[in-house]
């Protein structure tokens, strides 16, 4: 869950009833959660144990209230466009960035918090 603790990643895994693998790097820990339908969720955790970024790719959009936590409300406000059907949506605030794109069979998205990026880690890591 974006902004949550490392334990929140385990909660996500349980919620999604999915497999999880862990990749340790010097600057952060990457958790890859594999959903049954082929969707991949990646959660990026700081050395201090905070989820600074999440991403998703696959045939369906995962449960974003679960994945974005308290930041989902801001994303939903931003995408609440009345007119028009768009295939990409996003939030670009000074801290919160959420980007979502794709269509049936192939969705992609990511979210990160600028304030939580570990030193030496750029936002492009979250993908």
């Amino acid at each position: 869950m974006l902004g949550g603790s490392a334990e929140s990643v385990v909660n996500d895994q349980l919620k999604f009833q999915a497999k999880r693998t862990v990749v340790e790097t010097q600057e952060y820990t990457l958790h890859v959660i594999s959903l049954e339908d082929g969707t991949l969720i990646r959660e990026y955790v700081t050395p201090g144990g905070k989820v600074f970024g999440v991403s998703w790719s696959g045939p369906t959009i995962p449960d974003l209230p679960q994945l974005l936590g308290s930041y989902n409300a801001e994303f939903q406000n931003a995408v609440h466009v009345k007119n028009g059907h768009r295939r990409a949506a996003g939030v670009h605030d000074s801290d919160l960035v959420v980007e979502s794109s794709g269509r049936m069979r192939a969705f992609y998205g990511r979210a990160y918090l600028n304030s939580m990026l570990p030193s030496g880690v750029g936002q492009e890591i979250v993908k």
Partner: protein
Amino acid sequence: MSRRGRLACARGLVFALLMGLAACGGGGGSSSSGGNTTPPVVTTINNVQPVVVDSGPSLNGQPIGANDELFTTVTICVPGTSTCQSIDHVLVDTGSSGLRLLSGNIALTLPFVTDTTNNPIGNCVQFADTSYQWGPLVKVDVKLAGEVASSVPIQIAGAPNFAAVPTSCSAGGIPAQTLLQLGANGILGVGLFRQDCGPACASSSPPAIYFSCSATGCTPTSVALTGQLQNPVWMFPQDNNGLAIVLPQVGAAGAVSVAGSMIFGIGTQSNNGLGSAQAQAANANTGNFTTTFNGVPYTTSYIDSGSSGFFILDSTTTGLPNCASSSDAASFYCPTSPVSFTAITSGRNPNGSGTTVSANIAFSIANGVSLIDSPNTSFNNLGGPAPGVFDWGLPFFFGRTVFIGIESQTSAAGTGPYWAY
């Protein structure tokens, strides 16, 4: 363009002349074998469906204010009958497959499709902006131009007399099930695939696509390919191997509206030959291909008339500033003046030769706020971010004939899924 009052042959002649091709009766694609001395009767089906980019359907007497959205009028009928209705301003979407209509527009009585346990089947579709459509499957005959697809499973979005949306479908997003929410009267998915979901939903039960809905609630279920939402084009008796979307070019400031054509079949009649178009195969699972931009290949690339802009990469990679979140054009790019780019699309030649086909595509992106706040609706230079993705949205279609080769269907270009332009 008038759709009535002309003989099909006369209409074929009009398009044959426009396209500089053979005269009426020269096509048809039928052949006879053996020594039959009776010439085959070539019936020319009208395969040209008008499409338009305009300000969208009216709500309370005012156009809803669409930008870069391609619409058409779809006729649906109770299967096997002449009890029909036409619905205007249905979004033409090459990024999905299947017909989804808003329940508020449906005047026909259409029974729910049920599964083997007699439960009605619910269908969910999610969009990248996290909006969704939910509703029952029903069957209709779908009429487009002179073509008829019989007994096609379609979705009725927002049906009031149906089960509530499952939480895995809504997933915290907003519904796109009314005219105000969707900005269209429905979505006509005429993409690369025969079905909306395909093999994944036939062999497993993804959490948010098909549901078996009993009195106690809906649970995810698998649905055989033939029972899924179908791209109606591949169900036509003829002209069913794909289609072309033809839109004229617009100027840098856009146009108030643009009229074009959706032509069914590829190389099946005198008006739908490939001409100089080059075909590139798409990934058979995702529909994606590769676009190379500034020397970097992006494999998550697709052509999507249902995207109301070029949705490409991010501000850092493109050098384009995002529009302010508070502006009318949030989620678009806002350069102070138009910026020109070139990218290279590439894919395997779908003819099986093993070669790769590439095309250089020049395009430009202008200020999203200026475009959207203008009176125009049709832009070839509206764009916005999509991380790691190269989505050639509706702006790509202006000034082109774009062919969509449907999966497993063949033409002179090869076997789908492929694009040709």
